[in-house]
């Protein structure tokens, strides 16, 4: 089993989706339980990654390699490093919560919903495992399909606009990546990422490739100014779709930078690092202000996602400045680790925030902030979780939201105090938009009579929120195990940054 652990992780949920689908709309309960069984089993299998991945061994481990398309030299190549392991665990963890979260909420074709969710899980795990660029690309694109279906079928009233926008946006980005990959294939004769990393490339080539990759991943993250698909997609998506989108899919953008931009085009990436850093800071400050004035809770959290993901790109690209300009490898590692921790943390926090909004939406069928007010009067336990996650979203120490941002700000200051100044602005604006929302939704007296009829969260909802809460607190109180898991891989990446290709 351990020889094919990664394949098992990818295909278990995909194959497991088949019986879920076969359960049909006539047996929704069977479909739900089957889906939960598959999700739990996948999570259980993913836990084997922890003992199987040796922290002091080679960076890429648990490799599998089979020739897939002989004529093009495409391999079915899988392997993981510490960063992938962390992201896979995040994916399998979140999927369980999404399945549980959708339990009674999705009444229309639940078997299809659950099946789409499981397929999506498998494909996302595939993205985190692929060592062949074309295989990565296949997973990267294929994963759009279940998400497209999730938003398109179970979405809100403007779901058609949102799905098309979502699809074209991301597809437009990745088509440039495909062109880049074809160019690289012509030059190297392989899609193997390890070989491509060692491929010497001129600055002009690197520049073109860098922007091709940047487009693909910037849309995914998303970075300003290609972020506008995200609020629309979130608003129209069902709760589970939003949770997966925010918690895992956005991370694939950040992950792509690590796997493609950094190793293949290090010199161009270093040269254009200031551009990405400026865009990241715009995400923190500008998007922070935009989030402040949103009337729709989901839009607000979607914009807050853009702002928080700004720390991921900032942390990754600040590492270039630190390595190349200052030769400060330790600070670069600090920034890079901060970015990685921020990815995992944002997975928990945004997933939890969207779950909370889902809980409210299921009761009142509106996401407009003005329709709420005084929810704490009728739902005190919900209020506890909501405040906890809001605080995590505001980066309160002791929650996971603080760890990554803290590390990125510390590293940024070493590169340039001005960068740290703008990044640290999130302390103010992040708290402002999050807690202002909390004030208008949770606190106060009840003004809308429908709010008075809202029911306290049930056992199932409590389970979902408590699981997120446990993760948010555990990571906030003791981040070192996660950092230790990724330490070797981050060190390796930072080493690569220092190597010039020209």
């Amino acid at each position: 089993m351990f020889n094919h652990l990664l394949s098992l992780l990818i295909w278990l949920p995909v194959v497991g989706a088949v019986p879920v689908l076969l359960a049909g709309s006539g047996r929704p309960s069977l479909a739900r339980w089957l889906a939960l069984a598959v999700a739990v089993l996948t999570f259980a299998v993913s836990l084997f990654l922890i003992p199987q991945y040796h922290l002091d061994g080679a960076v890429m481990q648990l490799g599998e390699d089979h020739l897939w398309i002989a004529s093009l030299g495409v391999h079915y190549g899988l392997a993981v490093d510490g960063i992938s392991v962390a992201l896979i665990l995040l994916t399998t963890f979140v999927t369980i919560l999404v399945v549980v979260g959708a339990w009674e909420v999705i009444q229309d074709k639940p078997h299809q919903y659950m099946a789409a969710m499981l397929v999506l899980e498998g494909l996302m795990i595939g993205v985190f495992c692929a060592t062949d660029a074309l295989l990565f690309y296949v997973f990267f694109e294929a994963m759009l399909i279940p998400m497209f279906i999730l938003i398109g079928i179970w979405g809100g009233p403007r779901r058609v606009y949102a799905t098309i926008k979502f699809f074209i946006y991301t597809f437009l980005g990745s088509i440039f990546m495909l062109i880049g990959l074809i160019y690289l294939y012509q030059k190297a004769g392989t899609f193997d990422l390890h070989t491509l990393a060692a491929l010497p490339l001129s600055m002009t080539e690197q520049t073109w490739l860098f922007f091709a990759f940047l487009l693909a991943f910037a849309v995914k993250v998303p970075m300003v100014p290609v972020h506008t698909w995200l609020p629309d997609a979130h608003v129209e998506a069902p709760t589970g779709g939003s949770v997966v989108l925010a918690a895992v899919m956005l991370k694939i953008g950040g992950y792509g930078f690590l796997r493609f931009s950094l190793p293949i085009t290090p010199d161009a990436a270093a040269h254009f690092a200031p551009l990405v850093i400026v865009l990241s800071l715009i995400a923190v400050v500008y998007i922070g202000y935009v989030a402040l004035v949103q009337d729709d809770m989901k839009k607000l959290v979607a914009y807050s996602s853009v702002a928080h993901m700004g720390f991921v790109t900032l942390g990754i690209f600040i590492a270039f400045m630190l390595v190349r300009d200052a030769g400060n490898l330790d600070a670069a590692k600090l920034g890079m680790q901060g970015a990685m921790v921020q990815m995992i943390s944002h997975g928990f926090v945004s997933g939890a925030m969207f779950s909370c909004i889902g809980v409210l939406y299921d009761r009142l069928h509106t996401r407009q902030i003005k329709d709420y007010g005084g929810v704490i009067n009728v739902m005190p336990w919900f209020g506890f979780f909501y405040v906890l996650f809001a605080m995590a979203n505001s980066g309160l120490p002791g929650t996971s939201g603080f760890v990554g941002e803290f590390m990125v700000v510390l590293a940024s200051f070493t590169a340039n105090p001005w960068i740290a100044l703008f990044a640290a602005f999130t302390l103010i604006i992040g708290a402002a938009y999050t807690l202002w929302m909390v004030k208008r939704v949770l606190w106060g007296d009840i003004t809308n009579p429908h709010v008075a009829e809202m029911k306290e969260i049930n056992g199932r909802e409590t389970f979902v929120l408590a699981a997120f809460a446990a993760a948010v607190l555990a990571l906030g109180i003791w981040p070192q195990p996660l950092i230790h898991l990724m330490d070797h891989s981050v060190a390796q990446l930072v080493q690569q940054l220092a190597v010039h290709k020209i």
Partner: protein
Amino acid sequence: MELSTAILLTIPLAPLVGCLLAGFFGKFIGRAGAHSVTILGLLVACGLSFYVLYQITMGGAPVYNHNLYTWFEIGKFSASVGFLIDRLTAMMMVVVTFVSLLVHVYTIGYMADDPGYQRFFSYISLFTFSMLMLVMSNNFMQLFFGWEAVGLVSYLLIGFWYKRPTAIFANLKAFLVNRVGDFGFLLGISAVLYFLGTLDYATAFAGADSLVGKTLTITQGMHWDAPTVICVLLFIGAMGKSAQVPLHVWLPDSMEGPTPISALIHAATMVTAGIFMVARMSPLYELSGSALSFVMVIGATGALFTGLIGIVQNDIKRVVAYSTLSQLGYMTVALGVSAYSGAVYHLMTHAFFKALLFLGAGSVIIAMHHEQDMRYMGGLRKYMPITWITMWIGSLALCGVPFFSGFYSKDAIIEAVGESHRWGAHYAYFCVMAGALVTALYTFRQMYLTFHGKERFTVKAHHGHGHDAHHDDHHDDHGHHEPGVLEHAPTESPWVVTLPLVLLAIPSLLVGIFTVGPMLFGGWFGQAIHVDEANNVLGEMAGDFHGAMAMALHGFTQLPFFLVLTGFAIQTYIYLFNPALAGRIKSALKPLWTVLDRKYWVDDVYFAVFARGGVKLGRLFWKAGDAAVIDGAMVNGSASLVQKIAAAMRRLQSGYLYHYAFAMILGLILLLGGFWLVGH
């Protein structure tokens, strides 16, 4: 003998356990259960804190500095969770747990009828845990954790009565203003890591001298002195937490919270975290005279100008709140003249007498059925003698009357400022001196309005049966009654309320006499506080110190005492003999009164610029940036461009044969014409 880690760990964890039990199992264990477990936790923490203080001062225990676990470790950078227990920490632990314990007991009486009883106990125990983590920390990361965690609890407690619009406005305001300070604080921590390569106190302080001569490049050709940058940034954090001008605006509004937390958080402990932090960082601050001047000027401004606002307040709690702002200013001035021990000493005495004044005000509020306006009080001394006497003790301590504890700390600060030669010391000296008069003015006004003079309230006559049982004490229903009309005559509060008053009155009266010698002049803090020889104003003053008695007797001949006496005389004349005069002065000085009543318009400006301005800016960004440019022009614009081109192309396919034939002929002519042109 070295302190045991288990004991030290128990001190913060005991209140945390109490918090979790009261919070999560509040319904299950009931009201008595909730206050029992939290008070038990506090008893353990307080008892052990006294033990630790004893061990550190008398028992010969060495300074404890150990990490408990590694929070992160990346290359040469690391952060841990750990404790540094020296005399400064031990003193803070005792102050925090002692006041917190008394506040817990007091709460049993104050919150007796509140539906959120268990939740309240859970919060104040969580606060105690957070505050202990802050003061016991041995590194900047954990300091920041405690720093923000107390901010969170403050947020929760200011908004404790979450149905009140004013309360949930005040808690958001408090959190955000504090975040402005934390913004500077986080950058300060980043600067420490950048220049000193560590987040650990001991390592950072040991390497502090290496900062001298280092600079931070701001722009090309502009370099800032490293110690100044670090110290000013860290102090911005203190300005938020300790409510220094211009980040002071949140503290008066925080009075929306229940009175016990005003005493615990917004007077005795949390707001003094900034003072503690600067004292803790004294090895860094000693490197930058400019930063200390900055600290001193900010503190002095607050000491005088916020005190002035206190004179025109009518809400009993607000007077105490402005008094707290002013006293925090005094502590900050002391930090600014390198009299760190003086600041921390005033922190301690202030914790006792200010907690006493707040709890006393709370006792009055209970008696008045949650009326806080002093215009409807008066003559309460005969109804509540214990509250009356203890509050007088607190007030005299606050004014710095010789022999009271406040005298020793405050007089020392004023004198230290007078001795200092730092830039701006003259201004600061004027402020703290004038502040002594101001303190007397608002304090005696408050005492007279509350306890003396005519009763300005009436007690409703009882009609019929059943009225006695109607005990209108629900805090949520606050403010629906007619002002100045009480259901029952005011009575002295129950023992759970008066006992803490008495237990706080004792140190307010006596702690100065017994501790001033060692703590202020005897170098009691040892290595915990570092002062350069050249800046050591307290050291110079120590030469003239001949015991607590002599100092107090000397105090009777000094200017601050005469200023207090002047204030006392003015207010005694006005409020006991000629009450109409107050109104006449008010109308004579109408412009000045308006300035003070509007709080110098600082709140209004902030709200207009930052709150409304921020929302306006957000809307502009959203509508102009995201909606118009990105989505309108770029995304949907390119989509509609494709659509337009397609529509134009579609028109070509009209289906009429003669259109196509015409096009073919046109094409043929153009083609032939083209060939002909090329041929020539």
